[in-house]
Every structure is written in C-alpha cells, then in structure tokens.
C-alpha cells in the first residue's frame, strides 16, 4: 500500500482522474524508488516482500506460484484480469506511488490476501464537519472468492474519521465477545483536531493529519485482512457505498471507548476477582507471554519515542548551526575560507533534512508499528478476558442449576405445581448450561485460531518493517557520504 498524501481535493470526475494519475505514477514510482536507493538488492526487497512471504507461509493456497512471481503489477494488470478467470493474481501492494511525500513516509507493506486499500487525504471542503475530515479510500479487489462480496474491483469512497470509529464500533460489538481479534481503531485526539480545525497550515498540523491518515490506512488493511471480518456486511458497505449514514454517537467514542462499552464496568470489577481454574495450560502460557510482550513493547516504544524526539532536536539544531555558519562565512574576510564556511552551511542544511527524514522513518515505520501492536495486544487481552467472563457465566449457571436441583429434591413430595415449575426451570437452566459450555468451547477454539493467525501476522509485519527501516538507514548514510564527499574538495581548496 502506498501512502498518498495529496492535499488537493478530488475533482468532479473523482475516480477517473485518480485512475489516470495512478497509472502514470505507477511507472514514475518505480523510478522514484530507483533514484533514491542505489542498491538494487535493497530496492527489490520492498517490492516483493509480501510476495515471498505468502509463498513461504503458504497462507493463501489459492495463489499459484507462477502468477505471484509477477512483479510488474499495476492497476492495469488488475483490470485486465477477468472476473471469471479461475486464478487470481495476488494483488501485490504496489499502487500508485506518492507524488510528493519523501520516500521515508512509506507506510509498512502489510501483507494482504485479496485486497488492498489505499488511503489518501483530501482537504475538508465543507465547513460543517466539525470533528472530522475526509478520507478517500481506494479499494481494489480482483479476488474471485470475494467477487460476490464486492460489487466492483475498484472503488473510491470518501469517509470521515467518525465513520471509521462507527465501523469499528459495529465490528467490535459483533465479534469481540466471541473471541475474534478486532483491530482497534486509531484514537481520537482533541489537540490534534483542534489544530486542524483552526486551519493552521503549519508542519505540526500537517504532521498530525499525515499520522492519522497512515494510522487509518493500517487500521483498514488489518481489518480487511481478517478472513472473518472481511465478510462482514458493514465492512463491505464501508468500503463500497458512496454515501454512508452518519455514524452517530461517536463523539465520545474512540477505539478504546468502544472496548470499554463492550466490557461493562461491573465486568471490570469481576475481572479482578474472577479466579478461573484454567484447565488449559495453553491459555495460561499465552496470557503470560502476552503480558510480557506488552511490557517489552511498551518499553521499546518509549525508547523509540525518545529517539524520534532527539533526532528531531538534532535536525533543528543542525539547521540553526547551518544558519550560524552561513553568517560566519559572510563575516569571514579570507575569501577561500569564507566560501568553505558557506559550503559547510549548505552541507549542514542538507544533513538537517536527512535527520528529519530519518526521524520520520523512525516514527512511521517503527514507533507506529509498535503502537499498533500495543493496542492489538489490548484486543488480545480483551478476548482473553471475554473468555474468562464466559467461563464465569457458565459457573454461575452451573451453580444456579445445582441450587435449583437441590431445591427440587426438597420439593419433591408436597406441591405439584411448584414441582412442575421447578422442573421447567431446571430444564431451562440445563439448556443454558449446555449453551454456556458450547460458547466457552467455541470462544476457546476461536481464540486459538486467532492467536495463531495473529502470531503469523506479527512475524510478517515486523520482518517487513525491519527491512524497510534498514533501507531508510542505508539511504541516510549514503546521502551523508555524498554530501561530505562533495564538501571535501571545498575544504581542501582553502589556501
């Protein structure tokens, strides 16, 4: 998936022009990549990463080997594939390349199965959308199995932030309590939105918008990759319908808010006091593992935050020094030295941009990924808790059943209507218990499956991001060498 951060609104033939642009940019994009990274091996890494992953992990058996080796995917190729053909190209994520954003702002390639989502951002055109802004989603899906689900192979829709929250709310309510890991939606941010609302066109509000756009893109991709969630009618509506009913009551809601809604306060208290006799060591192990992982990821995220912060600081200080060196160069009366100092100032200016870009990579690649996973682990904890709750409910029903049985035994002789009532109650309760046992078994099964999938996805995600990050480091060092090598003769020219 490519990040597409244009600020121009879609024109009247919204979709068509978009497509044209995409097709052109597809070619340019390749060169863009080529130009910035001079190591061919590295280039091909990011391109075909998800490809080999699908091969090695054989997650998607419908993919035939010969097809998936095609690297020259473009939208054109997608359209060409007829809807009836038995095999499908696994749509690799290379969509239109970014026009303006720096190479480092490329969002992680999330391996996907049949779908790729492309998020772009349009400036707000109307003033009456208080808390929200428009996002354009480009969805393309040629997969045969999903053909019945999607009306067309491509769709571009405009969505508001609250629409995303609404979608998540629906999905969470529907699927969380039966053990599915519903990816959490990005958080609301009052501070960030206020800046954008006020209309500040500075770097921090642009940054906020970009951060949100990238987060929403990742969110959608994760949700769409989930085999069960993909089939959900609300998700399909979200991705396809041109007009979505305005999501209500999302004002106070965020991803975490939804979670809270699902887990009522009483349950929260219960959670603390429920001591579940875990018959399955697998769950115990996993829970412990996730607890540990959570702590570690948070720590890592914290360190990364610090790194981003310091690198930004370094960038700012380098810029300040560059200006100062330029002034010093102007003041210097020895001609050659004056020139060298001015050149030094220029180099430092370029270095400043490098630091800025690297901080961007630090953030958008590593820090955001970690943040996503920390929130995902929150979901994992949620489903674990849900399982415990179901267990508790089962225990409660069992207890009640036992009580009723005891009561019935006592009633036996005396009152026939009461006896009948008691027996009816018991039958009802027995049914409830059976259902409870089934539910519990089901959720345990679902969680196992989900965690298995989650772990696989985690491996893929992280591997991909690590490679991308390493590429960004390569880029930075290569540029540094270039700049300083250009400066060296200037310094030597001082006589």
């Amino acid at each position, binding site marked *: 998936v490519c990040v597409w951060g244009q600020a121009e609104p879609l024109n009247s033939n919204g979709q068509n022009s978009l497509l044209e642009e995409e097709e052109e940019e597809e070619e340019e994009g*390749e060169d863009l*990549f*080529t130009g910035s990274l001079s*190591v*061919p*091996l590295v280039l*091909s*890494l990011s391109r*075909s*990463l998800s490809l*080999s992953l699908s091969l090695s992990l054989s997650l998607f058996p419908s993919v035939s080997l010969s097809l998936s*080796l*095609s*690297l020259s995917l473009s939208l054109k190729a997608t359209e060409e594939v007829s809807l009836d053909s038995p095999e499908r190209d696994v749509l690799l994520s290379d969509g239109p390349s970014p026009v303006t954003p720096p190479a480092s702002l490329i969002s992680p390639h999330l391996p996907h199965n049949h779908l790729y989502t492309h998020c772009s951002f349009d400036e707000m055109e109307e003033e009456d959308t208080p808390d929200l802004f428009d996002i354009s989603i480009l969805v393309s899906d040629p997969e045969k199995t999903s053909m019945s689900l999607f009306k067309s192979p491509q769709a571009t829709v405009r969505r508001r932030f609250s629409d995303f929250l609404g979608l998540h709310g629906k999905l969470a309510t529907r699927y969380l309590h039966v053990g599915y890991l519903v990816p959490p939606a990005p958080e609301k941010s009052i501070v960030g939105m206020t800046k954008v609302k006020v209309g500040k066109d500075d770097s921090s509000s642009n940054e906020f918008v970009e951060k949100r756009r990238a987060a929403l893109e990742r969110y959608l991709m994760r949700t769409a990759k989930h085999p069960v969630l993909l089939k959900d009618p609300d998700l399909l509506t979200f991705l396809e319908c041109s007009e979505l009913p305005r999501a209500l009551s999302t004002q106070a809601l965020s991803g975490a808010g939804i979670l809270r809604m699902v887990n009522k306060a009483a349950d929260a208290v219960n959670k603390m006091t429920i001591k579940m006799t875990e018959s399955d060591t697998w769950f115990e192990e996993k829970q412990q593992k996730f607890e540990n*992982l959570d702590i*570690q*990821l948070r*720590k*890592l995220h914290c*360190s990364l935050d*610090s*790194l981003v912060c*310091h*690198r930004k*600081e*370094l960038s700012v*200080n*380098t810029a*300040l*020094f560059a200006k*100062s060196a330029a*002034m*010093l160069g102007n*003041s*210097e*009366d*020895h001609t*050659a*030295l004056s020139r*060298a100092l001015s050149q030094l100032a220029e180099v430092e200016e370029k270095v400043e941009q490098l630091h800025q870009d690297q901080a961007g990579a630090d953030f958008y690649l590593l820090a955001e990924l970690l943040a996503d996973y920390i929130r995902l682990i929150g979901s994992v904890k949620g489903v674990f808790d849900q399982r415990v709750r179901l267990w508790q409910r089962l225990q409660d029903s069992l207890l009640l059943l036992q009580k009723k049985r005891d009561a019935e035994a006592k009633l036996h002789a005396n009152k026939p209507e009461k006896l009948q009532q008691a027996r009816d109650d018991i039958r009802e309760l027995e049914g409830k218990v059976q259902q409870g046992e089934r539910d519990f078994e089901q959720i345990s099964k679902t969680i196992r499956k989900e965690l298995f999938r989650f772990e696989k996805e*985690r*491996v893929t995600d*992280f*591997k991909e991001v*690590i*490679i991308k990050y*390493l*590429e960004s*480091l*390569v880029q930075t*060092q*290569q540029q*540094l*060498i270039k700049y*300083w*090598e250009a*400066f*060296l003769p200037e*310094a030597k020219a*001082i006589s």
Partner: protein
Amino acid sequence: SLVQLACNSSKTRSVSVDLNNDTALIIDIPDALCERDKVKFTVHTKTTLSSFQKPDFSVPRQHEDFIWLHDTLVETEEYAGLIIPPAPPKPDFESPREKMHKLGEGEATMTKEEYTKMKQELEAEYLAVFKKTVQVHEVFLQRLSSHPILSKDRNFHIFLEYDQDLTVRRKNAKEMFGGFFKNMVKTADEVIISGIKEVDDFFEQEKTFLLDYYSKIKDSTIKAEKMTRSHKNVADDYIHISATLSSISADDSTAIKKHFEKLADLFEKLRKVEGRVASDQELKLTELLRYYMRDIQAAKDLLYRRARALADYENSNKALDKARLKSRDIPQAEEQQQLCLQKFDKLSESGKRELTSFKGRRVVAFRKNLIEMAELEIKHAKVMLTMIYRCLFDNAYAIMKLALNVVTSRPFP
C-alpha cells in the same frame, strides 16, 4: 575517582597550527591526574636553551597556575602590543557528572546490560572531557613557547621550571592586581574600541572585522555545541533500543527472534559509531570554533590596549597644548607626549604584525580541521553503511529476494 591519562601529545593538538617548530624549546603534557575536582597536569619541557638549569624536566601544575601565568602576561606592559594566547578554560566535568548522577537514579529501570553500556558511554565522555582539557592547556603553553617574545618571559620560565608549589606566588599576584582590572577591561573595551577615531586603515578594518566576527563565531560555537549534544543523545537512545530488542528477542519463540537479535546487535554497533561521529564533530568543529572565539577575544584585547594608548596620546596632546597656553610645565608635557606617541607607535607596529599572523594561523587551522572533519564523517558513514548492509544480508529475505529477482529476470535498476 582517580583517572590517569597518558596523552599522546601529537594526537591531541588539533585546534592550533603545528607549534613546537622551534626545537630549542619543546613543551608537552604527557600525562595528567584527575582527583575529584582537581586536575594535575604534568608539564614536561625539553630545551637546548642555556637559560634553563636542566635540558629535560617536568613539573606538576594545576589549572590555577596556568591562569596566573596568563594574567601575569596580560598585565605586563611590555606585551601590550601582542596577542596574548587565550587562557585555557577551567576543566568542566559538570556534564558527564550530571549524567552519571541521573544514570544512578535510573538504574532500577534498566537491565544490567543496559546500565553497563550507559556507564561505559559515560566513562568515555568523561575521558573525552579530560583529553580536551589536557589538549587546551597544552596548546596554551605551546603558543607561548613558539612566540619569539613571549617564550623568553621570565614568569613563563618560572612556570616551566620552578619545582615548588606556585600557590604562594599566585596569591601575591592576585593581591597585586586583583580581579578589578580584568573586569574593567571586559566591560569597557567594546565601547572604547568602537568610539575611538581611527587613523590607520588597517586597524579600522580589523576593528570592524573582529567585532563582527566575534559575535558570529560565538553564536556558531553555541549552536555547534547544541548540535553535537543532540547527536550524543541519539547515540544514547540506541543503547536502550538495542537492550530492549535483545530482551524481546530472548523471550520470543517465533521466527522473528533472530531478526530482533540481529537488529539489536546492529543498534549496538551503530551507537558506538554515532558516538564517535558526535565526539569527532565536537573536537573538529565545536572546539575549533570555541578556541578561535577566545583567540579573537585576545585580539580584541590587543585592539583595546592600542585604543587606550591612542586615547592616552590624544590626552597628552591636549595636556601639551594646555601647558603651552599656560606656559607651564612644558618640558614634562612634551616628554609625556613623546612617551605616549612611542608607546602608541610600538603597539601599532607590533599589533599589525600580530594580527596579520593571526589571520594566517586561523585560516590554516580552519582548513586542517574542516578537512579532517569531512574525512571522518565520510569514514564513519561508510563504516555504518557496511554494518547496515550486513544486517540486511543476514536477513534471510535479502537472499530470497535476490533469488526471486534472478528467477523473474527483472533487470536491476
């Protein structure tokens, strides 16, 4: 703590031009001792001059002794026309000490490995400060020894040779001059220098240039320092990231384990190099700027003294006119006027020489350091690039990608 440092004097000399050209008098600081707050320098002299008692000798000196020597030279009337090499700044271990303190407080939050690495990093920083201070004291002495006039100064010889504690002498000097004069100089010179009506083009230009250049170089020094400090912070962050990645990798049982391990390893390697980039930048850039900022202040002091002499001369002229008017004390007034004129001329002549050679010295030093800095930046970047490539190649995907590219015979861009 006691830190003994054996300095290689040729390595540490960087901000000043190659001194010690005159083999008749060679000075260096081969080692120094750090005891709590006090640094004890061993000043070693090798000489062929007969004015010294021995050809090869060493004495222990403190920072305050250097300051005494500097101040004595500044206040010597004879040297008013010379640029007195700037006094070395006081050894400042504040920054690493503060960091060490913070580290101690945060020890509980880190793993043992992390703590050890941070401590190592801090000890390196401590050592760097130490080396810097030795260098800057050494350069001061070498500037003196290579100056045709200053190298013959009696107090300088005492400093080099006197094998007793200089403390007593220092105290006497302080009583004589006090800090008053120095303070007065600092606040007054700007005003006087700018206010004086300059007769000589050369000095007019120098005045304008030096005043402007001083403020610019001072600003650059501050900004360069901030920049190198930020750089060090980034390198320190790598330590924490590496440590956490290591512990995640240790706990992980999935396919990602090795990747985290390799990444942790890479960050650890990178941080060492980034640290060196920061400290090289500091030595070649920040310290260079800082040294010449002080040197320019010394040049400004020279201009001040000359301006004072000019003012004195103008006053003596006025006094002479007055005396002629009153027909009283004319010979004294004439003599006074002559003296002032002589002094002024001497200062101007000597000052011109000094300022010209100063410019040459400055250009050479800048050239040397800028070249060295660029070369080091390139060297470090290449080293880091190699490390990152290795990490990429270690990653299995790199190889797989290679294979895939071969299979699809897509031409390498």
